């Protein structure tokens, strides 16, 4: 599989790997995918009182594009408002990383992950 330099860079130097306190009130967690399908992403966002994402962490089980897609996503969502973050499209991720067609589903998973994290956060807040 010939990957773009951007994928390889994110794979070799993944940004924002880690874990936030899932029980905290200002943290939203999205876990998407399934081990059987070969990829699971866990994306967590920490949101301040202005509704701005001030930190994001991820861990991903999956191929190189799945890891790169989630790493890139954490960079993109930081500093964004919840609505802006939830509006990120998989096509933007796929384009930025120049994912081959067979790997598009990795970017779809990343889009699902941020939507799930935002939803989780809003549910916690009773929104």
């Amino acid at each position: 599989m010939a990957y773009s330099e951007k994928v390889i860079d994110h794979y070799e130097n993944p940004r924002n790997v880690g874990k936030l306190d899932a029980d905290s009130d200002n943290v939203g967690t999205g876990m998407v995918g399934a081990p059987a399908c070969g990829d699971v992403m866990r994306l967590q966002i920490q949101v301040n009182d202005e509704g701005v994402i001030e930190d994001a962490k991820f861990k991903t089980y999956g191929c190189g594009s799945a890891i790169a897609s989630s790493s890139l996503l954490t960079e993109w969502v930081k500093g964004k408002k919840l609505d802006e973050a939830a509006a990120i499209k998989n096509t933007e991720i796929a384009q930025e990383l120049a994912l081959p067609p067979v790997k598009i589903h990795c970017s779809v998973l990343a889009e699902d992950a941020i939507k799930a994290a935002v939803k989780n956060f809003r549910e916690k807040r009773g929104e």
Partner: protein
Amino acid sequence: MGKAEVLNVPVYLDYLSTTPVDPRVAEAMIQCLSMDGVFGNPASRSHQYGWKAEEATENARGQVAELLNADPREIVWTSGATESDNLAIKGVAHFYQRKGKHIITSKIEHKAVLDTCRQLEREGYEVTYLEPNSDGLTTPEMISDAIREDTTLVSVMHANNEIGVVNDIAGIGEVCRARGVIYHVDAAQSTGKLPLDMDAMKVDLLSISAHKMYGPKGIGALYVRRKPRVRLEAQMHGGGHERGMRSGTLATHQIVGLGEAARIANEEMQVEGERLKALRQHFWSSINDIPEVHINGSRDHRLPGALNVSFAFVEGESLLMSLKDLAISSGSACTSASLEPSYVLRALGLNDEMAHSSLRFSFGRFTTQDDVDQAAKSVRHAVEKLRELSPLWDMYQDGIDLDTIEWSAH
């Protein structure tokens, strides 16, 4: 320092995929190409160029026959194991179709066997695909239970190409002979690595490939038993070469290459087998303290130099990306176009996750202890790195049973 390290190329640990041509084989082949060499058509009867070429191909036939302890007249040249499998299975199925149209094989055969069987199904044959046991083995008992009145052919491989496990082909042969069923063996992965004795084993047809045993690509052979005689319907028609079983001008240089490869294998098999087995055991003992590492397939019945390992909680393709210094292959879906994990590992009863996280290491004639040490070191590093990134590893360490979670399959 290993040779690969000096040359700055990945260490080649994919000998089940293909092997480099042994320099002795290359030398023998070069002698059969140009004007001052043995370039003639072995079928030319009217001049010495033809006679010399025929002598060369017949000498090679003898070398292959010796490796198999067979009669040279039982060796039919083909383009490789895929063609041998096609010729054996279609050839027997068609020739004996009045006797019956039922074939038995296993679910983890090479695609050259499985796809040939699928084609016969389209032609109206019935095929039983046996599920191997959890060790990846197909046993004589399974065959015995599956044979019916109308069964004409059993095709069960010797050594599996993905997991390296070795079936009891002598035992299966006994069952087949007792029940009057023809037995074909795909021995592409075992020829030259494990002893094969056609005189002692009740195998009727056996496919071999040169490029898996340090010979060239594009040449193979099919062993076709003479006593009791096995009949085949030819699949390639033409000048009636190979006693009508496979027409086409003999590729002298390729055949000589296979012959020389067989000669070397015959001579060195035992010592080399012990060396490879020791390397394999050394490799396993250097990685088996990594938590949650599993060997796929039988530990005891396997090729000396082959090991298939699953590393739980990491995914095979990303593992390969971290192992750029190694040339190996993965059972992960993500390395294929299909997105389906290995059908072989699935048939062993592995869950998809473990199938996704498998790597196949195969050592061979030019593998050194340094190569194996480097592989073990790189694998350990890569697995640790990816587990740091893996949410599944987190959950496992927190004591969460992954099977209790409702995943959103996609």
